[in-house]
């Protein structure tokens, strides 16, 4: 099926095509195309994912124990999520769905360290320049270096929060990026007393800075509520995992979905049953599939994932400071679910606080130092692992043959779940801000801001320092170039603008 503005009407007349290519790296390159009529009205907007990665194919034929290490190379931002989702799937394959207490707490600590560092990276390094300086502010300082100059304390906190999360990962996985800590059925190491004490020494500061980050986002919302509530806002369903008792949980749980008004659409769905509820639609103009809830169909079944979904999908957050912030967030919605893309930042900072509080709790667990690391039982031919990655629900599904080689792999990554939502956000922003306007860098950045709110994978690779390259080309129907605007990786704008 097709959504409003997804495909231009056949009677729309002469349409100009404007392409933003690449818009960012979303598991590779992404681009936005707009078709505009003679009255400068937007008739069609699409966010295309034009890269093809192929992991699902080349994992086939590899030994299963290699996959948790190999598959994490999908991503340089949240590899731990893939590492753990694959490990969870293979826990079932090796007959060890319940880990040893030490393995369980080491893995959970690894994941919460990942959530902390990824959320800090996204908010401070990638998004804070937009939020602190304005979407169309001087592009020369709209980057983390600009933030460091104008708000040195904020920039420092962002850098050190991320560093702390990476140290948690290093102590649990062996390396800050692309470690090997989780193996099918458990982990290959636990923490030493020195490692635990080193992390404990810094955690109270991380919790304090995370609280300050939540306060900062709340202040931004309060300063300009119209912008923050309306920018690219659209209504949709929500999906995430929650703990059995309804608590927010990033590492394990059951699938729950709500409709746009908060009503429960599904609940208590175990990971192994995901494919009974979640389908994937293929569209000819994008390599990225469009997931949907099967019982609602493609038109009504699409949903948001990630912080905004998780914080409103759970019944409570099992840590006191973050729970207090969640309540305030829910109250802001005045009884309605909050659907504003910019509210993702607020929810993300609440989650960062939850991650920091949870890390402290886990570090105080004796099991963290234990030596019983791996379990194995009767092998099974199939396994599904679901985890909440920083960007949303991540599903890994594998089948393994009698010879221990992988025969089937299905991955539904967070950015894929958010495919339709990101398209919707871009369409809203295009209509709100680009209709009838002359192209400028600042207007282009509005589209980037909407996409960035969802924290798509690999975004840091291109614009960690405000270096998201953009190219906009205005063509007539015959394909002749009428106008061109480019922003280089260094942030320089060039092209005709008369």
């Amino acid at each position, binding site marked *: 099926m097709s959504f409003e503005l997804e495909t231009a009407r056949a009677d729309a007349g002469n349409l100009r095509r404007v392409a933003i290519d690449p818009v960012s790296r979303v598991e590779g390159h992404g681009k936005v195309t707009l078709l505009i009529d003679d009255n400068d009205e937007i008739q069609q907007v699409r966010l295309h994912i034009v890269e093809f990665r192929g992991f699902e194919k080349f994992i086939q034929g590899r*030994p299963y124990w290699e996959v948790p*290490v190999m598959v994490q*190379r999908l991503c340089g931002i949240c590899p731990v999520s893939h590492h753990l989702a694959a490990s969870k799937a293979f826990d079932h394959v090796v007959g060890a769905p319940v880990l040893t207490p030490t393995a369980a707490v080491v893995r959970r600590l690894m994941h919460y360290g990942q959530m902390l560092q990824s959320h800090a990276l996204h908010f401070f390094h990638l998004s804070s320049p937009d939020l602190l300086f304005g979407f169309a502010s001087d592009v020369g300082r709209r980057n983390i270096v600009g933030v460091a100059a104008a708000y040195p304390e904020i920039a420092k906190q962002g850098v050190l929060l991320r560093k702390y999360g990476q140290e948690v990962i290093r102590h649990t996985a*062996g*390396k800050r990026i*692309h470690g*090997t800590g989780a193996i099918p059925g458990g982990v*290959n190491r636990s923490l030493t007393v020195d490692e635990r004490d080193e992390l404990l020494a810094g955690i109270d500061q991380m919790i304090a800075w995370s609280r300050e980050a939540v306060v900062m986002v709340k202040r931004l919302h309060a300063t300009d509520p119209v912008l923050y509530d309306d920018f690219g806002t659209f209504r949709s369903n929500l999906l995430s995992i929650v703990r059995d008792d309804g608590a927010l949980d990033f590492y394990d749980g059951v699938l729950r979905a709500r409709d746009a008004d908060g009503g429960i659409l599904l609940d208590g769905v175990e990971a192994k049953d995901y494919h009974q509820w979640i389908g994937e639609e293929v569209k000819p103009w994008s390599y990225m599939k469009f997931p949907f809830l099967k019982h609602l169909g493609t038109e009504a079944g699409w949903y948001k994932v990630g912080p905004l979904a998780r914080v409103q999908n759970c019944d409570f957050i099992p840590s006191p400071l973050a729970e207090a912030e969640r309540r305030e967030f829910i109250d802001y919605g005045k009884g309605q679910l909050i659907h504003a893309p910019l509210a993702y930042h607020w929810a993300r900072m609440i989650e960062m606080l939850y991650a920091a509080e949870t890390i402290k709790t886990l570090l105080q667990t004796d099991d963290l130092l234990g030596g019983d690391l791996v379990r194995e039982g009767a092998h099974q031919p199939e396994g599904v692992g679901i985890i909440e990655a920083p960007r949303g629900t991540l599903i890994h599904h594998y089948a393994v043959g009698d*010879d*221990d080689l992988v025969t089937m792999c299905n991955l539904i990554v967070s950015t894929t779940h958010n495919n339709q939502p990101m398209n919707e956000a871009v369409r809203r922003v295009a209509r709100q801000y680009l209709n009838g306007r002359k192209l400028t860098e600042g207007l282009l950045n509005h589209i980037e801001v909407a996409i960035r709110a969802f924290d798509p994978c690999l975004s840091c690779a291109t614009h960690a320092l405000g270096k998201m390259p953009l190219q906009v080309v205005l063509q007539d129907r015959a394909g002749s170039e009428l106008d061109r605007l480019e922003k280089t990786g260094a942030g320089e704008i060039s092209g005709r603008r008369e």
Partner: protein
Amino acid sequence: MTTGTMLIDGVPVSFEYGQTIMEAAMAAKIFIPHLCHHPEFTPQGSCKLCTVKASGRYVSACTMSAKDGMEVENNTPDLNDKRRTLLQMLFVEGNHFCPSCEKSGNCMLQALAYELEMLSPRFEQFFPNRPVDASHPDFLLDFNRCILCELCVRASRDVDGKNVFALAGRGIHKHLIVNARSGQLADTDFSLQDRAAHVCPVGVILEKRKGFAVPIGQRQYDETPIGQQMDELAARSAKAEE
């Protein structure tokens, strides 16, 4: 016992007659890079990593006998540059994906690449199609990583008396095969107790379901470069490598 003395990079090294340059260097704790050499097996000089300059000529240290008064160049920019080139050729000839290889950190090829500061791939990748053999219940053969050192061939033939492995084909088409009518490891009497199961310097012969069990930091070459592990390299003949 008759002994002699040679110079390796200007350092006097004594040896017993009949020893190779490699054996004398090992005894003197001087590192000469190598892949196909193993103190337990007859030298064959195929990998050429141990190429040194002896009295002005390029020779394989593992096969050339030490001679009294011989002047050997070993750790020189010229030789290390040639060794680096050999490594770069080995890396592109197979499919060596260190980031997801379970042998990473325990692999001599990778350790030597670090030791000799191989920083770039240099040559075009061959990307050969080499399906794995997972037929055996306890072992996986990943031919993608084979460097044709023939250590498994020698171990299976000379120690195990089984002849499980052999090289077939010629030139660039040379490849490791399993001596069974089916070509499958499951149809041989290969076992965990075989010496050949524990001599692969890269990640071809792998015990199943053990990958990544050793954490980063505790692997063979995590802390100490291979060039400083002379005792470990020399001790390989004294114990079965687990």
